[in-house]
């Protein structure tokens, strides 16, 4: 099936009409979810992930805590209708556990865990839709959720998937592309110029690696700009709300309808 789909055509366009280095639309929603301390919903094209963060708080099981720093507990759940073929994965599914542990190990050096000894930070990842680049979406959403929860981080973590089709590198792959070409995921810390995750499950020629890696690091910077913009927008709204609280509620807001797309 995959052989019939042209990954990159002669005009330099990919199967969804993007150019080689073009990323998909990034939509970020940082509105509050229930009682969570922080939450973020991000969509990269058709891939959609919701992350909620609780903590730092006392662990449910005291034996799981560490005396000198906080523990990151990542739990992941994949909606059964998120893929083309319906598949119900249990929480103990190996693929899911592996993803969760990858997210945890990505964030361990970034979160300032030493500030909260004997406590736990719970990160719940919900995958609502999948269309490639799942791990980067989870990582980006986790960064934003931790920021909205006010957990101190050394830096943002911005992740992106890159692949190579014959000799031309591609960025932000869809499922179709991921099934067909070698690809890897890179998570960068844009300000400190460090890399916290590089993972690859396919084989890639060693001469192609350098170019792709540098390209993915650069794309991380672009995603960082988007994420920073979203965080800044939310902060502006919050600061505005604090001022409004002092002055009294603005009158024109009163008769506004509630809509599903209401977001900060």
């Amino acid at each position, binding site marked *: 099936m995959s052989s019939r789909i042209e990954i990159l055509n002669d005009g330099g366009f990919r199967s969804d009409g993007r150019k080689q280095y073009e990323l998909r639309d990034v939509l970020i929603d940082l*509105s*509050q*979810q*229930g*009682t*969570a301390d922080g*939450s973020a919903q991000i969509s990269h094209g*058709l891939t959609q992930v*919701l992350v*909620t963060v*609780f903590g730092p708080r006392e662990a*449910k099981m005291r034996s799981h805590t560490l005396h000198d720093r906080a523990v990151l507990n990542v*739990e992941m*759940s994949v*909606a*059964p*209708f*998120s*893929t*083309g073929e*319906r598949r*119900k994965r249990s*929480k103990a599914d190996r693929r899911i556990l592996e993803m969760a542990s990858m997210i945890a190990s990505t964030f361990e050096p970034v979160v300032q865990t030493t500030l909260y000894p004997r406590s736990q930070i*719970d990160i*719940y990842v*919900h995958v*609502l*839709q999948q269309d490639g680049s799942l791990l980067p979406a989870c990582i980006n959403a986790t960064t934003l959720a931790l920021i909205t929860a006010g957990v101190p981080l050394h830096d943002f973590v911005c992740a992106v998937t890159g692949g190579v089709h014959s000799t031309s590198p591609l960025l932000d792959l869809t499922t179709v592309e991921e099934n067909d070409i070698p690809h890897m995921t890179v998570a960068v810390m844009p300000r400190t110029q460090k890399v916290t995750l590089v993972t690859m499950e396919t084989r890639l020629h060693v001469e192609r690696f350098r170019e792709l890696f540098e390209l993915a690091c650069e794309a991380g910077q672009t995603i960082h700009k988007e994420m920073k913009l979203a965080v800044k927008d939310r902060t502006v709204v919050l600061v505005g*709300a604090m001022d409004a609280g002092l002055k009294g509620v603005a009158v024109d*807001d009163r008769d*506004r309808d*509630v*809509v*599903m797309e*209401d*977001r*900060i």
Partner: protein
Amino acid sequence: MSATLVSKSERAYIQASLQTTPPLRADGRSLLDFRTVLLETGVAPLANGSAKLNIGKLAREGGGGTEVLAAVKLEVEDVESGDGVDGGRVACSVTCSPSAYPHLTSNALDDLQHDLTVILQQTIAHPSLHPSNLAIIPGRRAWLLNLDAVILVDSGNVVDALFMAARAALWDTKVPRTRPVAYQAPSVSKNAVKENQDSMDVDQGTSSLDTRDMGRTAADFELPDYWDEGEVLQGRERWPVSVTLNLLPPIHLLDATLTEEASVPLRLHLMFSFPSSAPPTLQSMRLSGPGELDLVYLKSCIADGEKYARGLFTALESKLREEDVRRNAKARDRFAALR
């Protein structure tokens, strides 16, 4: 399912304020008022039907409220060798996100998930509601309808939200049109269709496809047009709505928040179906909580519940029809305007 723990004094305070005249609720509603219900269909592009429902979203903050996501996915099942059932079957599942119940252990969460799955499965998959167009080829192939609901946030009244989301997703579901196909060798007379594919003589290269009037003899099926343009589930008006009466005799309240749920001793879940040409039916009923109830009072509760469910049904129905228009007619107009 009383999720939050409230102290004795808090419970007494809430109960006392509910029983004063006029009754007082923390958010200023009267006893029978619902919070704002928001509904959107077609939220999962890979599903055959889907809906997202929110009860009680805060106007300015853009968050809060019970939030449920439901989606229907259809699968083809083999009736003869697989575990399919002639005429199709319906399977429901409910997943509770750990962030909706941050204080529950994962075992308690599994129990809650199971409880809700049982309520949904027993009500939705009941033979009296079974849609007739889930069959593909009688005795051979049938659709399996998977209804998956995810509870993202629980801030009270989760059962009503679950059933409303399920109803919206089922309403939105399109079953792909199918056409039965049989393989036929030309030497055989037109009426005798060979059922067994193994006996077909492939080497001749003259076997032909016949798609006319197959009935029971069809071997397989094909999809004649694009999959999204299928037909809706038969009898989609019948899918039930649930209304939960939180009983604090002699009063009852609707759409309770978490703290109110924790302060009332009894909850009565009533699932009503409103067929267009028949009187309403009570599809299922659950009583939960530690209290007890006498029969006469229960009967009056059911009569009241039917009235509230009727209101809920009418509102939901008009919203669903509006969504149908938004997603079909308006989307077509917008597309035409772009060209």
